[in-house]
């Protein structure tokens, strides 16, 4: 509605300016002036050429340099290919909430996952937690089966429960992380979920959640030290 109101106001203003005989001449004069700088720029660009530093080389010289350039390009290609991990690696897209499992340049599997919800949980003025998945290059630091979740303070605060002591029994929850967990460091894991219907949506506290089948595939495909790229 605001857009329509703005368009109507602009239209009314232009109509008034044109129909008022005092301003008609000025208006007709000003309009082409607005486009004049663009026109001059186009003429300048058309006339301009970059500084003339061309050298005339003989055909033999050109072929020789071309050969040398091709050689240097192939060396650069080898160097660049050497940067791609040879073993399996994982790429996670936090905007689309999907993951791709690669071996070298070959895509092995692609499916949905869940990543950080971009929620900022505030507990008064003292404490706050940002639930987002970090971006960049990571390594699998460790792998575990049947992981147990040791609930951090925010897990109690976000559901309105009092925070228990550090090793209180209520902090330990079994089965919620699925059958496997892969540790990315700084408290971030790749794990399973009970909420499979939320896969493909940004709902986590920063970890990456996968379906049971995908988790098994990722767990078996990646080893300790395997690369994980998150963007």
């Amino acid at each position, binding site marked *: 509605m605001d857009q329509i109101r703005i368009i109507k106001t602009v239209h009314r203003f232009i109509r008034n300016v044109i129909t008022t005989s005092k301003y008609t001449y000025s208006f007709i004069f000003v309009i082409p002036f607005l486009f004049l700088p663009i026109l001059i*720029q186009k003429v300048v660009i058309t006339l301009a050429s970059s500084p003339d530093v061309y050298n005339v*080389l003989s055909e033999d010289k050109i072929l020789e340099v071309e050969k040398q350039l091709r050689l240097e*390009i192939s060396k650069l290609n080898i160097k660049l290919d050497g940067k791609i991990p040879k073993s399996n690696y994982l790429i996670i897209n936090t905007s*689309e909430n999907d993951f791709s499992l690669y071996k070298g340049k070959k895509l092995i599997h692609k499916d949905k996952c869940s990543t950080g919800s*971009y*929620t900022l949980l505030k507990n008064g003025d003292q404490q706050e937690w940002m639930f987002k998945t970090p*971006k960049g290059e990571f390594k699998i630091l460790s792998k575990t089966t049947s992981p147990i979740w040791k609930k951090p303070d925010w897990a109690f605060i*976000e559901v*309105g429960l009092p925070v228990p002591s550090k090793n209180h029994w209520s902090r330990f929850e079994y089965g919620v992380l699925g059958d496997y967990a892969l540790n990315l460091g700084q408290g971030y894991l790749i794990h399973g979920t009970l909420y499979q219907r939320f896969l493909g*949506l940004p709902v986590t506290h920063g970890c990456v959640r996968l379906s049971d089948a995908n988790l098994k595939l990722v767990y078996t495909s990646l080893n300790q030290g395997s690369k994980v790229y998150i963007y």
Partner: protein
Amino acid sequence: MKKFKYIFFTLIITITFYVGLSPITSIQEMERLIQEDSTSSSEFYNAFELQTSSHEKAFKEAVLIMSANDSISLIINLKDSTASLFIKGVTLHSTKISYIKIDPIITKFNTHVYQKLFGKPLLISKQKATIIKEPIVVIHAPKDTLEAALNAYKPDTLIQNPAYIQMKLEHNLHIIMEQEDNPRLNDIWTRFLFRVQNSVDNSLENLINFSRLRKPTYHPYIQIKIPVDDLRSIYRALPNQPQVVVYF
């Protein structure tokens, strides 16, 4: 009164030519780049026949330099019509560019200028977009379990705004990335406002330069259009001051 009118029109005409002639500053900047370069080997790459190979070499060298960087970077490959996210030698995401428009002043640069300009990663100093980088939702801790149950987080597909991005690079270069489809009136309106705002910003910058008796600024641009989902992924993945490699 008549005197003021003449002064006013003289000022308008001066500013018009001041802005109109601004591409000359870009050309001067490129001349300066070449003059700074005293390497003799570059003379071979200025032959027209070697242009394709030397552009490719410059591109590969730039990508190799960028692969040493720890953060996510951008590759705009206009030869392949692809825009890709890149980190440490690995392509994270790649998308097809459906529309390319290059400022004629850039295509006029010879291979020597091209190498100086695009033979290394360029730093994006400023990003401007119609979407937010991190769609943060603030939630206050509930007092008890009852309040928590009432405010339980309901995942949503999020309201997605139209995506138009402008990136300011070194040497006053601009990369404009736009969503390829504009199916809704809101998309067209947002694009219109985005473009008007860019024009106003450029004009204001030149007016300030004029008032301070500085040279005018011209922003050679590369405009591309890609699918909206890819555009959001790319924008949100890039850090605040990422590097970019351009190849054409």
